[in-house]
């Protein structure tokens, strides 16, 4: 059998589901399952990450609990998914961060924000820290731009490296039977599927959350969160270009592109995570991997903190609170970056890879 109890259970369920196939039209998991008659660890981790947890197959299944076949695909795949994050984490020594992820994320976030506040306080005069700064370069009176850029580039590049190594291990493990490199068409298809959350829709009926009515709004809140995050990232990127290409220093006026992008993104990062959190607290426990509550909420909280401190900084940037708020915001963003490979953020990376694999399999099947 498999290496873990949850993969054994996932294997049992996929065997049940493969002899039924009623859920074939709901999402990508079941068509992918039908392409196989037996399931390796990699296959099961692939299916687990392909699942968007819409809940439809649980509500639609004639064999879900209390039936003795005890078929609960969303919960089983949620547990398997979370365990796969630890299994593919790079370096492996840090995979333990997934075990008590909520605690790990909170401690790192607290330390990071504390470090920025202490650093600002230690390196700046009191009057500078609590002074009112306006005009170009105001932020850099508290922390030199090059120091900021170096620190955050290092954190970001480390996150990219760790994520790349993790997803490489995942990709290799789910490689059979097709193997090899991803083609452009499949990647494009996966970008579309991920971008619209195509499989978070219960096959068109809607997703399930607190009960058996398809009234779930997680798709909307996820869009707000995800596109909010992208807009914030775009804001930072544009600002970096402004700085190095044109020598234009932050802060920028409210109508300028980095601020517009950041404000829209910040609103998304505040509203989206709140909506996701509320949805999570109301969700039917039967569908949830309750042991990962800390991981899920930790990530939601990090995104919210990033958005919230960013918006607070924007609103209060011309007041004496700017210094401490800048420290808090930078602390939150720094913590978000360095915990990316060791928290819920990875779900997007693995799911995207799984969607690429699925697109490849569909193409391969259509071509054969």
């Amino acid at each position, binding site marked *: 059998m498999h290496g873990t109890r949850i993969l054994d259970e996932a294997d049992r369920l996929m065997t049940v589901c493969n002899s*039924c*196939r009623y859920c074939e039209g709901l999402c990508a998991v079941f068509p992918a399952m*039908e392409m196989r008659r037996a399931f390796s660890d990699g296959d099961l981790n692939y299916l687990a990450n392909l699942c968007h947890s819409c809940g439809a197959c649980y509500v*639609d299944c004639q064999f879900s609990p209390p039936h003795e076949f005890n078929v609960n695909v969303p919960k089983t795949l949620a547990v398997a998914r979370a365990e796969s994050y630890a299994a593919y984490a790079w370096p492996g020594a840090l995979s333990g961060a997934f075990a008590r992820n909520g605690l790990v994320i909170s401690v790192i976030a607290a330390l990071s924000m504390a470090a920025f506040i202490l650093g600002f306080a230690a390196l700046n005069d009191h009057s500078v820290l609590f002074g009112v700064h306006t005009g170009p370069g105001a932020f850099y009176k508290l922390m030199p731009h090059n120091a900021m850029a170096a620190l955050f580039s290092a954190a970001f590049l480390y996150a990219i490296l760790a994520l790349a190594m993790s997803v490489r291990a995942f990709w290799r493990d789910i490689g059979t039977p097709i193997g090899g490199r991803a083609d452009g068409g499949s990647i494009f298809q996966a970008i579309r599927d991920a971008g619209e959350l195509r499989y978070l829709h219960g096959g068109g009926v809607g997703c399930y959350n607190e009960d058996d009515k398809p009234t779930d709004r997680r798709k909307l809140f996820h869009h707000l969160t995800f596109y909010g995050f992208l807009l914030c990232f775009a804001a930072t990127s544009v600002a970096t270009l402004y700085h190095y290409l044109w020598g234009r220093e932050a802060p920028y006026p409210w109508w300028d592109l980095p601020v517009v992008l950041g404000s829209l993104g910040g609103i998304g990062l505040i509203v989206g995570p709140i909506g996701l959190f509320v949805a999570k607290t109301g969700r039917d426990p039967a569908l949830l991997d309750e042991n990962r509550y800390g991981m899920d909420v930790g990530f939601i909280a990090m995104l919210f903190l990033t958005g919230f401190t960013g918006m607070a900084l924007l609103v209060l940037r011309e007041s004496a609170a700017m210094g401490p708020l800048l420290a808090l915001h930078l602390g939150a963003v720094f913590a978000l970056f360095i915990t990316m490979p060791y928290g819920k953020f990875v779900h997007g990376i693995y799911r995207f890879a799984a969607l690429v694999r699925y697109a490849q399999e569909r193409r391969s099947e259509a071509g054969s």
Partner: protein
Amino acid sequence: MSSKYDVLVIGGGNAALCAAISARRGGASVLVLEGAPKFYRGGNTRHTRNMRCAHDAATDILTGPYTEDEFWEDLLRVTGGQTDEVLARHMIRESKDILNWIVEQGVRWQPSLGGTLSLGRTNSFFLGGGRAMLNALYLTAERLGVDVEYDAEVTDLVIEDGMFLAARLKRPIRGETEIRATSLVAAAGGFEANIEWLKQYWGEAADNFLIRGTPYNRGSILKMLLDKGVQEVGDPTQCHAVAIDARAPKFDGGIITRHDSVVFGIVVNKHAQRFYDEGEDIWPKRYAIWGRLVAAQPDQIAYIIFDSTVVTSFMPTLFPPIAGQTIAELAGKLELGPAALEKTITEFNAAVRPGTFDHTILDDCVTEGITPAKTHWARRIETPPYLAYPVRPGITFTYLGTRVTKEARMLMADGKPSANMFAAGEIMAGNVLGKGYAAGMGMTIGSVFGRIAGREAAKHARN
């Protein structure tokens, strides 16, 4: 809350919900009494996956037209003429509109599932299967204001001169143990889960039957109606039975315990003897005869035996095949006589004539010189590991029912139509389906007559 409803619907499956929705849309107040707990609501509908409706042109999900005449010919063929032509043709005509009507009630279609391509033209599949279909109907019914009660077991019906007055309940609902209503729709299914009743016709053999649906399909409403003077229809001794895995649970194993591997091997009984031509006919007909064949064997058990060359020729199965490196080892695991099984397989192998195997047609792979012959798809069983599935009769539904008119109105034993009693679904399927089955017909009967029964029941209540 009024204790008298316009329409009382007893049952909770496709037919019951279509009746409830249609009655409610017709302006009636409606109560649905489902005898099962909420999870097991819907009787056999839980396990269905498609519906057979006539249509004049291909649709988004159907690959081509399926005319009323073709539907009628299929029905005539599977029932061997045991059908009521007027009623059947009426149902077929009405089935055309059901394709759209059921979608208006929230049900979603999808193209035929993997492994069911042969139904792609005739049958519309429910997105997410039968329970998803039920969920959609319940949501619509509740949204429209239909009251639904679960665990609502009816213990008696008060009927006078063919007129329904009230239903008595095992436990009170809103303080009442008697529900009065102006019209009744009985849509409570057959008696396939009632082993004692089955024993009346099958004797002790029925103890070895596995029931494919829930334990709640006990036929109590059907029995009450027949006892109180409703005319019966359909052969009481008959039930639809397929061969399902002997390791399946006693009840509610659903579709996933079925086996469709008969054509790829041989089938022997507990004495390791073959007893029927495994290559007689093509799916789905071959699928539906084996339940009855196994029921006629000693201890109602049989074994599909094949070898490792054909494992991937059929859908993956819930239970893995039992394997042995030799025939004797396999026989040991199945508790069959090793010598007897070796003899059966040796004789079978020797009788196989060369041919071109093609399981999608009636091919020319036959045996010669053994009885019974295998008249198609006969290939030697000679490549270890040798594999087997133990099978028992899996009972799907029963044919006994209440006779109805085109308006789904019950007929009394004296031939007079009931004033206010209607029936839909399996409880009256025997009117149309005297024997046999074709995929998706049960749901057609349920939706078409459910919709009619609800409409007529509401009309009666309004007058």
